[in-house]
Every structure is written in structure tokens, then in C-alpha cells.
């Protein structure tokens, strides 16, 4: 198990709608929390990686203005994007910058202010999320893509809408405790089942909501980490993979092949298996996405993810607690900030500082962050 790059600091803003802040101010707030308590001056950060999904940004090339506002100039800054997994990609880039020896301390800042554009503009962008040549002309959306996975999972394994609803019930129970979540109401199975159809079999409460927010992760080399932070959290495993954008070319419709491949790489690099993971954050943009993540990450065999939630094994106290901060379903999903927020939750758990409950003695945690409808798969394994 290699310990060569560590997360020394992790921060995020409240995720909300109508935050009353500009993008740069959101980023500053996340950066301030990430720097809190560290033996590190801003001028010792050697590079910054800025992450978001550009279709929601008004600012062209946001990296420059954010680096300026955070006092990170004249050090190099640049922008990365893999839609909803942008900040996990930022982590991978930061890891590579440090591992290569080019830099020893790197800040990864993810953000999205989805309320910057009108709902009309959002509907227009929604239509361009799939392949614009061959899918958009039919009126495809991201929820529709995931709904097609849900239908395929149901047809193959007999998965029931009630079982998907139980995932939302679990996540909403933790979201109710999360002061930084957009959606803080605890829902019942009946609430979810009675919610309006969005793109059947997915209903309103099977879907996460848009939000505004930012996250920040500070990475450091082995040599610097012990000096900067009391409890460095090591990046033990990294996995990343890409599947086709066009739905007709996907390898699999009952799971995400990009997530399976990313998980395989991350487990191999960390030298651990699914049974060694104490706590996980998975990309629950829709309830079906969490169900498939159970199987893609090896927490359950294919088709048996529903049993995991039926038996409440993904609650604290179960076999593998998942999304115990409320997940995207409760926190909301400010696209570019999401990966950093997931990483922050695992960092907190591994430090014994859980905010919505603590998995006692958690030593190894996992983050699963997906871009698009199963296009970009990212899995990160962290350890103390």
C-alpha cells in the first residue's frame, strides 16, 4: 500500500439554491475551510486545478479569476472537466502533478453555480447532454439515460421501484442531519413512491436536485504532508475509465462498465478489496445509480444490490455504510463541486470527525464519482 500523496485539507460550502454568493466567493469559502488548521501558507501552494462543468458557467476560463481571488497567482492554474466527476478528475491530475515531482502541494477547487442560468437555459443544456448528432434529436436527457438503466436492471433482476425508494429513504435520513445539504427532509418510502413521474421508472424523489456550491481539496507529497497536517489522509488507490457517450454503444445496461473498470484499478492499486472498505461515498445522482454502485464496486453481486438496501446493510452499523452524509440526493449536486464534497466526507470519517454520524474506527474509505450517464468513471480509495 503506497503512501506517497495525501489529502491534508478538505472543505466545502453549504450546498443550496439561492446562496447569495458569486462563484469566486463560494470557492473562497471552501478553500478557507480546507486550509483551516493546516501548517501551510497560501504562497506554499505550488499549483491549482479548477474543476466545473462549463455549460453552467457564465465566466469564460474561470480558473484565472478563481486563482486570483484565492491569492494563488502567480502559481500555475488550469481547468479540468468531466461533467459531474470534474473534481475527482482534478484529484487525479493533482496526484499526478505531485507524484511526478513537478509540485509538492496542489489545491483542487471544484464549483458550480447552477442557478446562474435560467430554467429555460438549463432545459436547453439538458438536451445537449447526450450525443448531439444521434440522440439529442429524440429529446434525450440525463435522467432518461439513467431511467433506461433502471428499467434494464428491473427487467434483468426483478428490482422493484420500492427498493430504489429505500435508497432515497436512507439518504434522506442522513441528509436531515447534514447542515450543508440542500434537501433536509427525512422521506418515507410512501413519499418517494407517490412523487411525480419524471422519466419512468424514475420519479421526482429518485432524482437529486441542482444546487450551488464549491469544494476544495489540498494535496501534498509524502515529505510535506506530515509537516502540514496532523492527520494526513493517504490516496491509496485511483481508478478512472471511460465508456461510450452514445447509449447504443454501452457495454452494459444493468451497471456502469466505466465504474467497474475504475473500481478494479483502484482496488488493485490500493491492494484492497470491497470487503476492506469501511465507509463509501457513491454517486447517487439517481437512486438507481446508488443501486448499481453497490454492484459495480463489489459490495453486492450483480443483481443483489437490492438485498443490501432491503437488509439496511448500507446504513451506519451495516456491512458497508454508504452516503451517510445524505449523498447527492440530499446534498444536491453542484456538478463540479460534488467529487470534492464526497472526498471531504470520507476524509472526515477517516479522521473520526463524522458530522452526520461516525463509522467507528473507519480506516479505509472509498469515493465513486461518475460523469454523465456512465461516461466517466472515477473511484478513489483513501486511508489513514
Amino acid at each position, binding site marked *: 500500500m503506497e503512501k506517497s500523496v495525501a489529502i491534508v485539507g478538505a472543505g466545502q460550502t453549504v450546498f443550496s439554491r439561492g446562496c447569495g454568493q458569486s462563484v469566486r466567493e463560494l470557492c473562497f469559502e471552501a478553500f478557507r475551510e480546507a486550509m483551516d488548521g493546516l501548517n501551510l501558507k497560501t504562497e506554499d501552494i505550488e499549483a491549482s486545478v479548477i474543476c466545473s462543468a462549463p455549460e453552467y458557467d457564465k465566466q469564460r476560463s474561470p480558473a484565472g479569476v478563481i486563482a486570483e481571488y484565492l491569492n494563488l497567482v502567480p502559481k500555475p492554474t488550469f481547468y479540468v472537466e468531466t461533467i459531474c466527476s470534474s473534481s475527482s478528475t482534478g484529484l487525479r491530475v493533482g496526484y499526478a502533478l505531485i507524484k511526478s515531482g513537478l509540485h509538492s502541494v496542489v489545491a483542487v477547487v471544484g464549483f458550480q453555480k447552477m442557478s446562474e442560468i435560467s430554467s*429555460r437555459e438549463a432545459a436547453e443544456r439538458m*438536451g445537449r447532454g447526450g450525443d448531439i*448528432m444521434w440522440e*439529442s*434529436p429524440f*429529446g434525450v436527457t440525463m435522467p432518461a439515460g439513467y431511467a*433506461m438503466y433502471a428499467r434494464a436492471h428491473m427487467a434483468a433482476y426483478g428490482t422493484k421501484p420500492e427498493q430504489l425508494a429505500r435508497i432515497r429513504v436512507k439518504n434522506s435520513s442522513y441528509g436531515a442531519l447534514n447542515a450543508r445539504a440542500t434537501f433536509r427532509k427525512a422521506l418515507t418510502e410512501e413519499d418517494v413512491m407517490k412523487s411525480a413521474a419524471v422519466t*419512468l421508472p424514475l420519479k421526482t424523489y429518485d432524482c437529486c436536485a441542482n444546487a450551488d456550491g464549491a469544494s476544495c481539496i489540498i494535496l501534498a507529497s509524502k515529505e510535506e504532508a506530515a509537516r502540514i497536517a496532523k492527520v494526513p489522509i493517504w490516496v491509496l488507490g485511483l481508478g478512472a475509465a471511460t465508456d461510450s457517450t452514445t447509449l447504443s*454503444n454501452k457495454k452494459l445496461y444493468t451497471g456502469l462498465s466505466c465504474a467497474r473498470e475504475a473500481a478494479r484499478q483502484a482496488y488493485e492499486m490500493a491492494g484492497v478489496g470491497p470487503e476492506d472498505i469501511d465507509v463509501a461515498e457513491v454517486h447517487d445522482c439517481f437512486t438507481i445509480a446508488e443501486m448499481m454502485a453497490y454492484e459495480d464496486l463489489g459490495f453486492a453481486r450483480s443483481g443483489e444490490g437490492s438485498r443490501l438496501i432491503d437488509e439496511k446493510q448500507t446504513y451506519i452499523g451495516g456491512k458497508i455504510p454508504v452516503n451517510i452524509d445524505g449523498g447527492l440526493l440530499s446534498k444536491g449536486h453542484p456538478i463540479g463541486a460534488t467529487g470534492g464534497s464526497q472526498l471531504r466526507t470520507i476524509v472526515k470519517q477517516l479522521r473520526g470527525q463524522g458530522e452526520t454520524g461516525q463509522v467507528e474506527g473507519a480506516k479505509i474509505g472509498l469515493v465513486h464519482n461518475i460523469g454523465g450517464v456512465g461516461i466517466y468513471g472515477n473511484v478513489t480509495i483513501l486511508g489513514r
Partner: protein
Amino acid sequence: MGFEKFGAVSFTTETKTADFVTYLEKGQVVASRCKKCGRTYFPPRADCADDFSSEMEWQPVQGKGKLMTYTIVSYGPSGFENDTPYILALAEFPPGVRVFGRLDKGIPPEEIKVGMEVVVTPVTLAEGKLSYQFNKA
């Protein structure tokens, strides 16, 4: 030019595969096939990345396909607001050509089943635009 006629909302005008629309006008849905290696592509492509060839030919998607998955969309993106609810679907045709498109709205939801047999047929939309949909076989 010409590809903007494909679908209710289009984002692409120029492509080397624009003849796809010409075939729709003639009543056929086609895939593209690499003359060099024989690989069939849907969605159609002008270039085969397996062997860097651009020598492609058109091949009709025909026969009975199987419905792989579908969703009934209640909220559509811009340009589809008045079109909902509509059904998006994936179907596999012999010899393993997977096609994404619309399923006939007229089929009652309780009759739609994963695995059911479908055929693919060109359709004419408003303002002379062209598309295709899956119908019950």
C-alpha cells in the same frame, strides 16, 4: 448540409453521414459498414477507427429487433416541451446492431415489455423533418 433535417431538434448540419437522411426519405434506416474490416456501426460513422479507413457503405437495419430497455419521459428538454410524454428506447436488431430512438407512443404502457419484438421505421415530423421510430412487430 442536410443533416439538420434529422430529428425535431438538431444541433448538426454538416457531416459525412448526411446521406442517412436521404435514406430516411427513401424509407430506410441504415447503419454504416466498414468495407475494409466489415464492422457495422450504429450510430453510423464516416470513419472506422479500428483500421483508419473511411471507405464505408450503407447497410439497412432490418428485420425484427428486441426491445432492450426504455423510459417514458414526462419532462423534455427545449423543443420537446409539447411532445411529452414520449418513450425513448434501445433495441437490438440482427446481427447485433443496437439502435437508440423513440418507441411508438400509441402502445399502451402496460403492453410495453423489455424483450418485445419491434421493427424500425422512418417517420415524418412537423416542418418536413425526418426521424425513425420503433413499432411493435
